[in-house]
Structures are given as structure tokens and as C-alpha cells.
């Protein structure tokens, strides 16, 4: 029997949110290929590894209907199961996998200690934005993240979400420019929305923006772009779907100002089915953000055959050879121009044709690749 792989779920179990990182964790669990067992664990307040009941994995893979009740129930179940955790000796942990970004010095120390005992420690890295683009985050946040970089020295094996992340690691985090074979890139699945393949129709008139509305994701440029179009008499509909950050004061004020505007629909944290319904009317997905660890929304839209408008600087842009209008500048005028061009049916149809030819990996593919890589240790 191969050595089990311990999966450090400290953050997910303590605070189960629906963040991008936690989604990847859930997909990794859901599609774990075996043969080695995946054992959930976390690090307690004393820095000790404790093994969680296997039922944790089932809870995390359960279907999500998006309702507050279901999510609250999940939280309760995880808390209950976490209480049943039992200590596990470091010597028992031969293979440790971490898919989380964390701030805890205790956790960094725990990984460093266990790596020192010879345990194979595998980390999957998303991006280094908090360290390399601190301007996108509140003052002082980067300092609090530094224990993650310290703990990263424990990792004996690395995999990366994108080529950009791998390059940043080599050149700027490790600062070893000629480092080779540092680890694979494991592309995320593009089928998370589970939307059937879409086809173009001139009746599709909506543009959909998916993702958290927060200042660093540049929502204002998108909203200003649509306001420009509306002011030109173009009655085109924008659907904004995602979590609303209280920091996005300008965007929230915009929504309040346009509360009676039939061309603006705001859906706060929609359930998957609601999102699918919106995308079935979409002409394109728009992502105004320029600073992302990956840039999942255009990637997922394209999987369903829906074109996207996005920044050329998104890490995911490198994986999107066609079907996407990639913009050099994500200002209001550029976005408005791109949207306006897609209102022309012939232009839109051409982009939809391109999108139809694109094939992207699924979460199952990702899960298998990640599992295989984790078991290579």
C-alpha cells in the first residue's frame, strides 16, 4: 500500500468560504485519483499535525446549492468533525500536500519542522501578488503574509498554477534565474460552472462580469465603460455577479445610482444554477481586472464556448489562444470599444466560432494531474 498523502486543510476547515483557492482544494479532493489515500489534516494551535476524520472529505465534496443554510450546515459539520481530530506523529507523515495560502507563523514552523524530518512536502502555488503587487492590497498586509514565504522554504516539491507564477518564483522569490525543473504547471479545470456548450445567437445581448467586486479588480473601469455606452444610447445589459466587497465604495455607489436602470443587473453571490442561467443569455464575459493570480472567469466562459473580453496581462491569457478579445489597456474607453465591437453580430459570430474550437482541461483532469504529482514524491 503506498504511503498516504496528508492534505493540510487548516484554513479550509476553519473558515470554509467559496474562495478560488478553496475551490481548487475541493476539486483536488473530488478528483483524487489514488491509489494512495488522501488523509485530511490540519495544524493545531500548538503547531502539531492532527488528522481529521475522512468524513471531512465527503463534506467538502458535497454538492453546493449556494444557499446560506447549506453553507452554514457545512460550517457546522466541519467544526464538529474538526473536534474529533487526533494527533498524528510527524514520523507518520511521509507525504504532505499544501494547497493553501496562509499567514500563520505556527503553520510555517510546522511545515519547516516536518520537512526537516525528511517528509516530502509538496506545495501548489497560485501567485505572488501580495508580495509583488502590494499596491493592490491594504498597507501592512504583505508583512502579515511573510510567514507563507518563510514556510515555503519547507517545500521539497512545487507545482504552479501558471507559467507566470513559476517565473516569479524562480526569478523573484527564490532569486535563482537559472533554476531548472522546479516543478510542473498544473492548469486548473475550466468546467467549474458545469454549463453546457453554448452557441451564438443574435438574441444574446448580455455582457456578464463574474468575480468579487473589489477595488483591486478594477470594477470602476467596467462600470464607467457601460455608462459611456448607455449615455450613447446603446441599451446593452451588464450583469455583475459576485461577492461585493465593502471596500468597493465607488462601485457600490454606482449600483445605488443605477438601482432603477434596467440595463444593470447585480447578483450578489449567485448560486451556480443562477449563474448558468445568466450565461445562457450572455454574448460575452467581461473581466476588467488586470492583477489576478490566474483569471478564471474568461477561462471558464471559453470552456462553455462563450467569448470573453479580458486583460492581456492575466496569467490565464497565455492559455487562451482564440475566442477572447485581449486588451492592452483595461480602461473604460478600451472596454467600451471592445464591448461595442461585439455588438456587431458578424464580429461576435466570428469570435464565437473561434471559441467553439477551443478545448480546455476539466477539473477532473486537474485533479488527476495534481494527485499523480503529489504521489510522485
Amino acid at each position, binding site marked *: 500500500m503506498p504511503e498516504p498523502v496528508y492534505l493540510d486543510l487548516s484554513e479550509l476547515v476553519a473558515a470554509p468560504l467559496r474562495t478560488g483557492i478553496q475551490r481548487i482544494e475541493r476539486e483536488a479532493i473530488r478528483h483524487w485519483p489514488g491509489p494512495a489515500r488522501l488523509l485530511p489534516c490540519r495544524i493545531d494551535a500548538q503547531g502539531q499535525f492532527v488528522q481529521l476524520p475522512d468524513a471531512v472529505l465527503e463534506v467538502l465534496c458535497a454538492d453546493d446549492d449556494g444557499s446560506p443554510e447549506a453553507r452554514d450546515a457545512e460550517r457546522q459539520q466541519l467544526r464538529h468533525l474538526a473536534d474529533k481530530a487526533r494527533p498524528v506523529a510527524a514520523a507518520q507523515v511521509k507525504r504532505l500536500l499544501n494547497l493553501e495560502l496562509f499567514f500563520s507563523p505556527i503553520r510555517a514552523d510546522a511545515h519547516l519542522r516536518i520537512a526537516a524530518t525528511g517528509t516530502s512536502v509538496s506545495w501548489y502555488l497560485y501567485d505572488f501578488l501580495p508580495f509583488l503587487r502590494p499596491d493592490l492590497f491594504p498597507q501592512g498586509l504583505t*508583512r502579515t503574509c511573510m510567514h507563507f514565504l518563510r514556510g515555503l522554504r519547507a517545500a521539497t516539491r512545487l507545482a504552479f498554477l501558471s507559467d507566470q507564477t513559476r517565473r516569479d518564483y524562480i526569478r523573484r522569490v527564490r532569486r535563482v534565474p537559472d533554476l531548472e525543473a522546479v516543478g510542473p504547471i498544473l492548469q486548473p479545470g475550466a468546467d467549474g460552472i458545469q454549463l453546457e456548450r453554448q452557441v451564438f445567437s443574435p438574441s444574446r445581448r448580455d455582457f456578464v462580469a463574474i468575480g468579487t467586486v473589489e477595488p483591486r479588480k478594477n470594477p470602476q473601469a467596467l462600470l464607467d465603460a457601460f455608462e459611456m455606452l448607455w449615455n450613447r444610447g446603446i441599451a446593452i445589459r451588464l450583469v455583475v455577479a459576485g461577492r461585493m466587497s465593502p471596500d468597493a465604495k465607488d462601485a457600490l455607489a454606482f449600483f445605488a445610482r443605477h438601482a432603477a436602470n434596467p440595463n444593470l443587473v447585480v447578483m450578489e453571490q449567485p448560486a451556480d444554477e443562477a449563474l448558468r442561467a445568466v450565461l445562457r443569455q450572455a454574448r460575452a464575459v467581461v473581466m476588467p481586472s488586470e492583477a489576478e493570480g490566474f483569471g478564471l472567469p474568461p477561462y471558464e466562459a471559453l470552456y462553455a464556448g462563450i467569448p470573453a473580453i479580458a486583460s492581456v496581462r492575466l496569467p490565464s491569457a497565455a492559455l487562451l489562444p482564440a475566442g477572447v478579445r485581449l486588451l492592452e489597456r483595461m480602461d473604460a474607453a478600451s472596454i467600451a470599444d471592445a464591448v461595442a465591437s461585439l455588438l456587431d453580430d458578424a464580429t461576435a459570430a466570428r469570435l464565437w466560432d473561434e471559441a467553439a474550437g477551443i478545448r480546455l482541461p476539466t477539473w477532473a483532469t486537474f485533479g488527476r494531474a495534481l494527485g499523480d504529482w503529489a504521489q510522485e514524491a
Partner: protein
Amino acid sequence: MAWRRESPTIVVDMRCLQDPHYTSRGVGRHALTLLRHAPPGWHLSGLVDPALPALLPAARAAVQSIYINAYAASGAARPGSPPAGFITLSPMTHDPLFSARLLTDPNLLRVAVVYDFIPWRHPDRYLPGPAQRLEYANRLRWLARCDLFAPISKSAARDLMTLLGVPERSVAVTGCPLAPGFENAASAQPHQAPRHLLVVGGGDARKNPEVVIRAHARSGIMQRGRGIPLVVAGGYSPTSIDQFRAIAAAAGGRADLIEVPGHVPDEALVDLYGKALAVVSASRDEGFSIPVIEGMAAGVPCLVSDIPAHAELVPDSECRFPADDDAALLPKLERLATDAGWRTAVVEAQATVWPRFRAPDVGDRFWNGVRRRLSGPAPAVRRGYRPRIAMMSPLPPDRSGVADYTAATCEALGRFVELHVFTETANPTRLRNVASVRLLGELPHLSTGFDRAVSVVGNSHFHTRIFELLQRHGGACIAHDARMLLFYRYLLGQERALAVASKELGRLVTEDELNDWLDDEGKLETLFLSEIAESASPTIVHSPVTARMFAERYGTTAIYLPFSIYHPWSPEELTKDRRTEARRRLGLEPNEIAIATFGFVHANKAPEECVWALEVLRGWGIPATLHFVGQSDAGLSAPGLGPLVEQLGLTRYVRFAEGYVSDQMYRDYLIGADLAVQLRTYGFGGLSGGLLDCAAAGLPAVTNQSLGAAVGVPDYIRCIPDAISPLLLAEALADLLAAGMAAERPEAERRAFSEQRSMDVYARHLCQALGFEPEHDVARPAMLETV
């Protein structure tokens, strides 16, 4: 050279039009009339005191601009377009020191409006104590500095000439203006049968209505039948009214005939005049008597006490009576009531008097006097004059970077000007090129013996008095700090801090917010510089960011002079040998990469980020050490620092200074360190003397963008984003190392920067900011003289 100008600018001291004690009384009315009748095309600038209530809107409308201190209104602040004259509208009622810079300026025509010298004649009543008498004498001395006097009556003019020895040619008697509503009241109103005698009095016992009450009470004609009422208008207390009635009763009259309507507005007063048999003014002393000309304009005969101001208006002695002689007044009252012919003759004779006091005529007499004097000869400046500058600042040995900066400024500036320094520093260090160092006081602000007054203001207790004087008297100001939060909160008090913050932000700032800002200056929303912006002319700042914020937030221009090198280095001090010696003194290993960070250790200088950057650098295999070169009570000002150093296992590689860092150690680090870090967690254009020192010494360093922009740094100082990332900090330091800058300092760039930022250049720019061109070796000072 002459004072004559087509459109002269005249500064007017308008405090009497702010002070509610005067705005609605004779002083305020007279002052406002004068302003409203200024010659067309003349530019009037109002001087107001921000500590007094707001200026009357009508007064604000009468001037084109407003200044809040005398310096700002003077030629010192506006050398290109200095004012031609200064008018003090009420010189004896407000602190003369406030306008002293204008009153002592021989380049100005100084004009005083003179009302009366009643306190001088009745000291027991108006100047009861020595303090009041001294104060009055002091004001008289300041009044005497004026060139032209505009008394409201000939009698006031005579007093002026007697008291101050003012020559007649310097006097222009104006009279007082009749309010337009009283003009031609006689013809404008239908004739009404006389019903009462009228006294327009007031709270002051000098008005003496009692003598009229007694005469009225003793008059059988007045008391007979229904009687003729005596109306005593003015703000009297119930006690006074009771006393009036008691006096009437005691004199055998009827108390019910005494009517005291209280303060009467102008329209009602016109009506009272219209129904009056006579107006009686029994005042014991006046500078002028407005009720008399009002009565005359209403066509009512006026009987007046025999005092000089009344005699000017009522030349007929038959209509005058000794002020306290009711027996003399009584027959005149009865004759007016019974002798219609005499009454008519009196009215006709008096009808020729009041038209002289129409507001435009009073205004013309005043402004013609000013115009005549302005067209006379003016003072001239002797060629080769060397400006005299007063600079108010802390000096070494006070432990203040600002004190050091001033010392360096003085040495350079003193080559161009005659420089006098005023300070509270005990036993100040001897300064080169400075004419004198004196104890700080008001003198440099008040005297035009100093062409410019320059206050040096910073965010510490060394500047409290300097700031107060600047607020009161104005002057140029070198504002060292980009925000004055701590100064306001801890030195001026929480209430003041909250008030200023609320004013700057246009909303109510709470105590909690203020405490939040104190905990983390990164959250600060405002600069606390508005009062400096209002008072100073000009404000000089050392950060372009601050200058921009001045314009954006306060709508005023601050002059930006680059923060300059006040600890210069010669190439000989920076040789490799000297570096080796310095490193040895500091105990640095040859292969150690010593990173220094200068200044008091505080959380707002991101010390934790520095420690983390060290951790990253060591993780990259760079044998770096971190040295906090500044007083450290890290436990208080950066509480997480010590535990973090320990947690990261960096105790051996982080060095804190013990106590105060000596100059020698500070300089050794500037020479001996390989790299430096100077960070700020807040923006607002704050400066760092430490960063400038690094640049001056050619020490390669890393700073954050806003601090780098504020100081203006050369290429060997690298900037990272203001949201500080230890990884980016480590990366920038490693890049400097990789570029070989630590091993071989960029001497050529350092020299170029040092020349560009020398104190000599700074002093030249400072001269220009103060309004004159710097010239070396000009003759010793020559004071202004009149030709």
C-alpha cells in the same frame, strides 16, 4: 520716486467692523461709510483678525481682498505690488501690535480715523487702573506713528494736536455721516404736531439725560394738563428707568411723563424725531453728536450742552446750556414750547448745518485728504541696501533635525542678507554669517526694521511659540513637516486638533478618529497645515507633494524649495580608507553586508518590514545584517519588533542602538554601511533627514515611492511601492548589491546631487522666495530713509 499711483492699494484695518462692540455703533457706521465712498479704481485690502467674529458682510463687500495678518498685507509679502497706504479705522479700540508692521512701515501712508479722546479727559471713569492707563498711553504712542489723521470733529482735531503734537497739515476733519434714512426726514414726512421732548441717550452716564429730566419735571408748561412727555431713547436697564422716574418725581414732575422706549431702530427713531418738540443733547463730552444732526435733518430744534463738539454744530449760544445746569435748560425748553417764532428761527438756522454731513461729503473729505497725501513725496531706498531678515527657529544644541537644518540655512543665507536669528534655544551654538542671535519675541514681527520675518515651524515643542507668533503676526514660514497632527494634539490640545481637522475636512471629526490617526498615521486624512497656510506669506515647503497638497486642499500656493543637504560631505571623508576605519569603529566584519536604517525607531518607519527583508536576504544567501541607527524604545514605538527578530532567528543579525546615537556613530554608519533603508508607512509628502543624509553620503539606499518623491532622490536611491513589501525591499537591496553600488559608491552622481542640493543653492532660492535677488558682498545694511 513718488507715492502717486493711478490705482493705489490701500490696506484697511477692519477690526472695528468685526467686533460686535462697535459694528452697530457710531464707530462701525462711520468706518463703513468711509469704505463705501472710496474713490473708484482704488483697491482696498481689508486686514482682519481671525480671532474676532466674522467681518460684517457689508464691510466685506466694500473691499476687494482680505488678509489675516499685517505681514501678509504688507509689502514684505507682496514686494512686486506693495500697498501705498494703511488706514486704521479705529486705532484706539484694538491691539495696535496686530497692525504694527504696517504702522511702522515708512513706505506706507498711514492714516488714522480719530473719534475722540474722552478717556484721556475722564480717566477716573474710563481708565480706572494703571493697566488701563498704560494701555491707553501705548495706543496713543502707536497712533502718533500715523502720517495723516482724520478726526470726526474739529474739537477732536484740537485734542489730537494738543495731545500728540500733530501738525495741522496732517489733519483732515471729516465729521460723521448722517445715515441716509435721516436725510430730509423733515420734508419726507407729513408735518406732525409736536408731542414730546426727545433725548437720544445710551448706557453711558456721560450722556446725562438726568439734567433734561429735572428741567422737564420742574417746568410747569411741560407738566401742565396732559403734559408733554419726555422720551429718553436708548438701551437703559429697568433700574435706570426707575431712577429716571424717581428723579422726575423728586423734582416735582410726573413720573408717567417719562417714556423710555429702549433701543429704537432707525425707522422708528425717524418717527420719534418727527414728533419731537425739541431734541436735547445734554452730554458732558462727545467727539461728535449724531442725534444733533439727525434732529436737525428732521427739522426739529436742538438744544445742546455747551461742549466743544456741540458748539461746532450749534454755534448759537442761545441753544446751548451748561451740561449739568437744568435751571439754564428749563427756560429754553419752555421758550421752544411757547415761542413758535423762535422755534422756527432755530430750525431754519440749524437746517444749514446737517447737509455737510451727508455720507458722500464725509467720504470725500476723508479720501481727498488721503489722495492729497499720497501725491506727496515718498520714502526711497538707498542703493546697495542689504535686506535684513529675522528668522525664528530652534538652534543647535536643541536635539532637533530642524534646528540643524536652520543652522546650515543661516550659514548660507547669511552670505546674501543681514540675518538675525530669534530663538528660545538656551546657549545656542555659534552660527557663522549671522548678524545676531536674540531671544524670541514679538519684535521681529512688528518692526519694519526687518524686511522679512521667517518663522521656521516643525512638528515639535521647539516650535510652539514660533507658531503662535506666526498665527498672530504672519510672515514667511518654512514648514518642515508635511503634517502637524502631533503638534496640534499634544501641544495645542485635543479640542484645537479636532476643530482644525473638522475645518480642513469640512465635516465633524471625532475623538475616536483622531486617536485612530495617532495610532496609525497611515490613516491620516488631513495635514493640519491650514492655519499655517492662512497665516504665512509665503509658506515654503521642502516637498513637492506637500506643495501640491497645499494647492489642492487649501487653495493656496506653497513655494517648494528642495530639501537640501545640511550635513554635506567632502570626497576626502568618503574614501575607502575612511570607510574601513568607520566599519572598524562600528565593529562590522569585512564580508558583512551592513544595512543601516536611520532615525528614531517607530512603527511608521516600517521596521518589521526591514526585519523581514533581512530574513529574505539571508534566505538568498546574502550575509546581511540590519542596524537601527536611531534612538530605540522599540518595545513602545514598534512593539512587535523584538519578538519578531527573535522568532525569525535573527537576533545575531539585527543591531539596535543603545540610547542616543552620537554624531560620530551616525556619520560612521553613513560612511561604513553597505546599504540603507528609509521607509515611511504614510504619504502626505513627509520628508526624511536620514534619507537625504544617505544621498549626500552616496550611500545606496531603498525608500518607498512617496518618500523618495518628497525628498527627490538620485538614482542610487531605489524606490519601492508605498504599500511596502519586504520581498520587494529585499529585491531592491539585492539589486543594488548586484549592481556593485555597495562596493563602489557612485561618487560622480553623489557630487552632482550634492551640488544641486547644496545649501548655497537653497539659500539663493530662499532669497527669491522672499522676494529679492541674492547678491554677495553687498554693503552693510542701510536703513530706509525718507528723502
